[in-house]
């Protein structure tokens, strides 16, 4: 019974896809089948992986946030400039600053959505412009902070702890915390409750507005964290970094089975979705597909995944109906 439930789940299907993609790519190019290749991939996609968690929370309450990469750029640029002009040196402080800025940015979006009743797409679109512009403004209209300016902070991107990159430890920590919070704590279940039926949640004493504010604030926090990771991993901060990356994050969640209308989705799903998104650009060049074709194939794959999912769901429904006794 339990096994059947597991194999029938969306996550299991995604897991198979991830394994299959990994296997195919590894067969064609054995170089990919290595610990290093996998950790490199994770490190290079740290930003998407981390933000997918925040987006999971936002989408679970039926929202969406397209301002995240602007938040990332603003917070990343802030520490970039602070480091460049020697105001700070501490790596920990950098992380705290980006997360602080991110939290404020996210909270503003959340306030607008939960308190002023602005639709999430519109609120986050407005802030997408605003935060990006603020990123430019604090960079004195477009300065970069490059490797040399970042001092010891950039070592965070390359340092290892117990044989694993620190960046990957951050990802693991985020996923473990989220997994526990979403599955085993009241607040996590309240997020699901709000997404599943906001009206009912209100009646059973859940402060729906606060939950919405919270998920956006957490989203901001993670976007800020991603700002630190982006600057550390690529050892550079520029005001236009990660522009358009929010769509990758949303796509990762959707592929991972997070419903856009709320209530459905899991941390494992978000992880697998983000991994698939990470593997597509990784796999295509390995398969010797011309760089020009990458975007189209990526789009077709996203579309295929969602369409196939709908078709499978329909078949499952039909079979369930056919089994019904009459």
């Amino acid at each position: 019974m339990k096994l059947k439930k597991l194999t029938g789940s969306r996550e299991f299907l995604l897991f198979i896809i991830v394994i299959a993609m990994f296997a195919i790519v590894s067969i064609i190019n054995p170089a990919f089948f290595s610990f290093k290749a996998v950790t490199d991939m994770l490190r290079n996609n740290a930003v998407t992986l981390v933000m997918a968690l925040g987006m999971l929370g936002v989408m679970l309450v039926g929202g969406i946030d397209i301002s995240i990469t602007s938040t990332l750029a603003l917070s990343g640029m802030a520490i970039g400039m602070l480091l460049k002009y020697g105001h700070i040196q501490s790596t920990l402080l950098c992380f705290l600053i980006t997360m602080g800025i991110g939290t404020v940015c996210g909270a503003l979006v959340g306030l607008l959505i939960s308190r002023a009743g602005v639709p999430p797409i519109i609120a986050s679109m407005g802030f997408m412009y605003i935060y990006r512009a603020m990123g430019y403004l604090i960079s004195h209209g477009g300065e970069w902070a490059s490797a040399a300016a970042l001092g010891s902070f950039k070592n965070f991107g390359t340092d290892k702890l117990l044989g694993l990159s620190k960046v990957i430890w951050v990802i693991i920590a985020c996923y473990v915390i989220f997994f526990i919070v979403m599955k085993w704590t009241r607040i996590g279940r309240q997020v699901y409750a709000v997404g599943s039926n906001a009206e009912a949640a209100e009646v059973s004493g859940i402060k729906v507005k606060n939950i919405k504010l919270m998920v956006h604030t957490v989203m901001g926090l993670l976007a800020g964290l991603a700002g630190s990771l982006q600057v550390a991993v690529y050892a550079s901060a520029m005001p236009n970094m990660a522009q358009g990356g929010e769509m990758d994050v949303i796509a990762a969640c959707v592929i991972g089975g997070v419903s856009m209308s709320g209530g459905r989705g899991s941390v494992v799903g978000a992880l697998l979705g983000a991994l698939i998104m990470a593997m597509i650009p990784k796999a295509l060049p390995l398969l010797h597909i011309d760089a020009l074709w990458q975007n189209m194939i990526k789009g077709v794959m996203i579309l295929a995944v969602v369409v196939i999912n709908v078709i499978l769901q329909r078949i499952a429904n039909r079979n369930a109906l056919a089994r019904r006794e009459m």
Partner: protein
Amino acid sequence: MPESQYVLELKGITKIFPGVKALNRVQFQLRPGEVHALMGENGAGKSTFIKVITGVHKAEEGEMYLYGQKVDFKGPRDAQAAGIAAVYQHATSYPDLTVAENIFMGHEIIKHGIIQWRAMNEEANKLLKRMNADFSATAEMGTLSVAEQQIVEIAKALSTNAKIIILDEPTASLTKRESEELYRIVDQLREEGVSVIFISHRFEDMYRLASRVTVFRDSQYIGTYNVDEITNADLIKAMVGREISDLFPKPEVKIGKEMLKVEGLSRTGFFKDASFTVHAGEILGFTGLVGAGRTEVIESVCGITKPDAGRVYLEGKEIHVRKPKDAMDLGIVLLPEDRQKEGLLMSWGLGRNVTLPIMGKYAKGGLNDEKKEREISKQLLEDVDTKAVDIFQPASSLSGGNQQKVVVAKALGQEMKVVIMDEPTKGVDVGAKAEIYSIMGDLAKQGYAIILISSEMPEILGMADRIVVMCNGRITGVLDRGEATQEKILDLAMEKGSTTKGGAA
């Protein structure tokens, strides 16, 4: 302070919504271990009152005493903590979560901040067993039937160890047999010393369960009566403010030619091999347990869903209905079951609601003739005697009964041959019910063929010329008005395997 004889007492409660006084100095007393019915027409303020008790709304005036102590709830959590639990009219479930989670939402079993899933599932299964439910606590809520969800809601109330449980129209979407199950559970609760407040439109519920009844009308308190001392007529008078002499004005109509004929209609998983006919001037009743497939058959006839097999004839000619519009063009008009979700656009003005299906008929070159639209909608709304100020007010501002009248008006505007009414009196107060029956009778007199889908036995017996009974996706019998009795219908509705499976799908 002397020990109060009431577990719950409310005095002089006034609740104001923008522009409306929803409650005007109402009072209420609940004795320990009693089942107390709360009755009144739709819009009388019952639901608002319940929400004041449970802390969802805050009253502008008035006091509330719990076991003689004055209380002031800041929110639903306070009420919950004080041992008050409510089961609301519209199921307040989380379709994406499991049964156990639905039951324990807000008071999960938690140790060191971690939810104890195993303990919660066990506890939930115990509660479900207590109510004879045959589904597991790990089932997903969205996959359960309405009746099963209702059981979960009650389990949820029980799980808080509530001393006062409020049931807001619990039987509205339940079949007779499921209602019986509910009565049993409520009896059990009373024996356990729980006080129950019970809101219902069904007199049957009240007689069967309650010892006292409180009536509200037009946001005001009318009175509290002992159930065995008040007559039916007096109670109706208290609720409506007037007497209703004839609830079922079934006119004598000469049955005409065959209008609609359905042959072997099937849709996998919903119904199989449905065949029936309806004639001009005839009211054909459709009944059965919830989930028996009544609505589904009709929806396939109307093009809402696609049947897998079968033929449909209108006035002898085979028709192929692919979408709702096809059915409407042919004169088959459906008044859907769920007014708020399917019948009306709640934020739209009444006029526009009424003309939505017909505006193409008087449009000029694709453009709306708004003047004509206003005239037509005014006429239609007045025809069904809608209580409304103007045709621009939103449908959401009307009471349930008046909303249903707007749905009827919307149908009347169309060129009808066959009218299908799916639970037209669900959640409608007594006064409006009578008006809807009278309209139904008028339509039959005018020679329309009418299909009436209903779970309410008196309604079906009172209005239908013939009664089609469905069970588990199949038509199990057709009874003539003369031969039909409550027992015969129940026999047919619970044939075969359905007695073992709770509520079917």
